[in-house]
């Protein structure tokens, strides 16, 4: 690769990180709860984007391209992870019955609660919901995941209902108690995440 094309590539890459870097971190967070492994996943996503970027010919939007790679890396991470890790601690976090008033007072508590609740969703629901929360249209979500808009609409509707249930149950019980159970009872996106 010549110096000028490498510079152009680096500039493009930097723009992607500037515009989507925080979203990529959130995608990583939707697949991995443990901070060190989440950071590893984020770096894997960044690496995959860097390696795929020279072959990107603009067939889809940059946003679609970036989210496809991020979710695909997330799936690889999930499939290679030891079954003993990850899911259980996420479920434990969501289903922790102990109220914690000090934590309740923290500024990021609502965000953390939302993220824990999203992480508790089953994978199909979690994927569409996280993409919707990033502001992607149903058409774009379909392009990222390779499913029709109808499928996206159905999954999103169920995911929202499940999430509403989880968050509602959390508020009702003074914490996140029962959220895992709520998720488990829902028809779609219902199982507490990553039961495989």
């Amino acid at each position, binding site marked *: 690769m010549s110096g000028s094309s490498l510079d152009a590539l*680096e500039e493009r*890459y*930097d723009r992607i*990180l*500037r*515009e989507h*870097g*925080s*979203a990529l*971190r*959130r995608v990583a967070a939707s697949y991995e709860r443990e901070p060190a492994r989440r950071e590893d996943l984020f*770096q894997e996503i*960044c*690496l*995959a984007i*860097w*390696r*795929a970027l020279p*072959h*990107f010919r603009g067939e889809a939007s940059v946003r679609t*391209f970036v989210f*496809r*790679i991020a*979710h*695909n*890396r997330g*799936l*690889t991470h*999930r*499939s*290679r992870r030891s*079954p003993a890790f990850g899911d259980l601690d996420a479920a434990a976090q969501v289903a922790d019955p102990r109220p914690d008033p000090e934590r309740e007072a923290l500024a*990021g508590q*609502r*965000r953390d609660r*939302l*993220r824990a609740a*999203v992480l508790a969703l*089953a*994978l*199909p629901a979690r*994927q569409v919901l*996280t993409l*919707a*929360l*990033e*502001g992607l*249209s*149903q058409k774009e979500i379909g*392009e*990222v*995941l*390779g*499913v029709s808009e109808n499928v996206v609409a159905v999954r*999103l509707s169920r995911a*929202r209902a499940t*999430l*509403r249930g989880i968050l509602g149950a959390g508020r009702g019980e003074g914490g996140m108690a029962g959220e895992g159970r709520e998720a488990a009872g829902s028809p779609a996106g219902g199982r507490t995440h990553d039961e*495989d």
Partner: protein
Amino acid sequence: MKTENDRELRGWMDEWRDNPAPAAEARAAILRHVRRRSRTLALVSAGELVVTVLLLAMLGTLLLRAREPETIAVVVAGSVLAVGALVLSTWNRRGTWRPSAETTEAFLEISVLRCRRSLRAVRYAYGIMVVEALMLVPWLFIGIRRHPDRRPFGHDPYIYYGALLAIVFGAATLGCRWYARRVRRERRALQDTRRDLVS
């Protein structure tokens, strides 16, 4: 999806996106990291070719020094096997490159295919080990019979070379089994994911 009219989703989006974009310094660090990792991955990808070239160079040197016909035969057969293994490995990976920007569905399909190919590569590796053993054992046997006075490091040559072969092939077999188990687990997880996403 009319986000602007959807207060619930809007509220969740605000909470969800409550983390800052990486600063210029952090982006530069990420770029340095991915460039370094990219170079490492390129070296690893080229590793198979490099190992084959080194092996062929070593076998070529042996061939120039070889006097006994069985040694010449084993060196030539080893060279053919090394080139064959490289060709087989390259052929086995066809169609599985750069899937990361595909749709999730296509990506999962290629990932499962990659796992199948990896398991096939393990089977090839077992086959190559059998062929190597079939070449090396008679060659060693003939060599020992030809030079009965040679005692490697003072040991009985049958025990010495037998133990050496057992250790090398045993370690390779254990490595293959460990790798195959890991790939099977990954394939199961990918198939479960695909089933989850399709249902």
